[in-house]
């Protein structure tokens, strides 16, 4: 059994408590993430994905009910060293322009690393590494004004700013929105590399089922602030009472497999990625 890095149980949360605008965001969310996996968080709009991620970064603290344990510390404990936890948990926000606040890209990427108290050469090295990892050329971008970036470049810069802190746990809130297909697959490669080489654990909130099928090891389905399904990605996507019930589509690969089987094509196993489907088709074809 691998180590559990995130355990959320029975978490409830409401925004603007005590005002006429009070709204419940989480009504009993559950989440378990093991070290070194890419865990996906899926659910329709307003399911509470972003809220849950904010709890993992201790931006929100359990106020009403529930337990949140992140990297072995109780995120509800009043004595929690919030800053120390945040140094180990990096959050990339849903809207990158909410995240970039320094005037120049280089400064913004360096911001978190500077907060760690690293020396100037170390910070520079981190910034160079992070910008290379997300595919932003250091010399071309470090002196660009953050607000002059395009949507996709902002997305990359925001991610670089978090990567430069080398967090143990990386939280991504719909991180591929605004990226072109090439950028999207680059990001997927990067996340796999971070998992395999750096041992980083990734929690990824996403609406794109194909992306989740391609990338994730486990998946948790949220609806109306409640966890309605969770488990290894294959089990969840191939379970009968799966995603349509909560208004989510299947990954297109699962649809393809279903359609082929309906037509009597004996495809083996439970393929999830396009490569797996292709392999299955080759194997099922008479030689």
């Amino acid at each position, binding site marked *: 059994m691998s180590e559990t890095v995130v355990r959320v149980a029975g978490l409830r949360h409401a925004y603007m408590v005590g005002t006429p605008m009070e709204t419940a965001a989480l009504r009993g969310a559950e989440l378990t993430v093991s070290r070194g996996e890419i865990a996906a968080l899926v659910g329709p709009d307003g399911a509470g994905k972003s809220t849950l991620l904010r709890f993992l970064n201790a931006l929100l603290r359990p106020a009403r009910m529930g337990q949140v344990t992140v990297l072995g510390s109780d995120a509800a404990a009043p004595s929690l060293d919030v800053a120390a936890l945040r140094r180990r948990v990096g959050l990339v926000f849903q809207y990158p322009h909410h995240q970039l*606040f320094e005037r120049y890209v280089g400064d913004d990427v360096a911001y978190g690393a500077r*907060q*760690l108290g690293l020396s100037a050469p170390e910070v520079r090295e981190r910034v160079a590494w992070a910008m290379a990892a997300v595919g932003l050329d250091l010399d071309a971008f470090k002196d660009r004004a953050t607000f002059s970036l395009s949507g996709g470049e902002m997305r990359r810069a925001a991610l670089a700013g978090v990567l430069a802190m080398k967090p143990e746990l990386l939280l991504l809130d719909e991180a591929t929105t605004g990226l072109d297909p090439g950028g999207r697959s680059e990001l997927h490669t990067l996340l796999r590399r971070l998992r395999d080489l750096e041992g980083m654990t990734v929690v990824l909130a996403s609406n794109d089922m194909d992306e989740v099928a391609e990338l994730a090891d486990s998946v948790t389905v949220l609806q109306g602030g409640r966890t309605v399904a969770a488990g290894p990605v294959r089990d969840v996507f191939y379970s009968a009472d799966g995603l349509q019930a909560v208004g989510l589509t299947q990954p297109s690969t699962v649809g393809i497999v279903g359609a082929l089987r309906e037509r009597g094509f004996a495809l083996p196993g439970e393929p999830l990625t396009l490569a797996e489907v292709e392999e299955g088709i080759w194997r099922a074809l008479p030689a």
Partner: protein
Amino acid sequence: MASIASLRHVSIGQYIAMGSVVHRLDPRGKLICFGLLIIATVAATTYTSNVLLLAAVLGLVLLARLPVGYLLSTVKPAVPVILILALMQLLFYGGSADAALLTLSWGPIHIVVGRDAVRMVVTSLLRFLDLLFLTSLLTNTTTHGELTRGLESVLSPLNALHLPGHELAMIGAIALRFVPILGEQMESILMARESRGVGTGGSSRWRVVRNAQQVAALIVPLFVDAYRRSEEMMLAMQARCYRGGRGRTHLLESAWRLSDALALGLTVLLVASVLALQHLPFH
């Protein structure tokens, strides 16, 4: 975190649907009443007139079914400033020596706290509450669309002077709409900074300086974002053929009803009595 959450508690400019009598009043009438009540608030300097005014305003808040506690809680961040201002007024208002309640002497410094100073402080606080409640009353019970329409027709006499009444109303309404947006934006920037470990490391001795720097650093991104937002809004309006007020009609037309006339009449009566109380021989 408490500081971040409290930014959301900006009650001004936020419509709260409660469906009360006040919500249903004609926006033009409401605006005129609002203006009259503001005049009364500015004019009221005596105890009696202030008590009457505050009672009336509180009555209106209750009538509109707005949560009084919530409105009051929005003042919390301003309390230190208000207290310092009150103290300054109390100490330095001056006044004649025969009406003095308290005289402090310390070397060459003489501080006289007079009856007038106390009255000034008390009435200032009450009037501050009036202003808060009145502004909340108007913006919490009137949707932005209604407010724009109301402002436009209240300002329409300006058209005769070749002043752009519609545009002024539109600018005013958009400005109000931006209050909660800026609050949310500020919150998200603060969150972004916190999530990357602001306020860690460094000695606590320079914390005040650092906090001041952090607030200053917020202003630039906040304004850049506000500009960009307004630019996008401009494009969105142009894309839907907005060309200013000329020839523009409204989906909803306000109808002036008996209740509106009644509300206006009562407001005029109230303002008149507040002004009359000002001139009574006793305070």
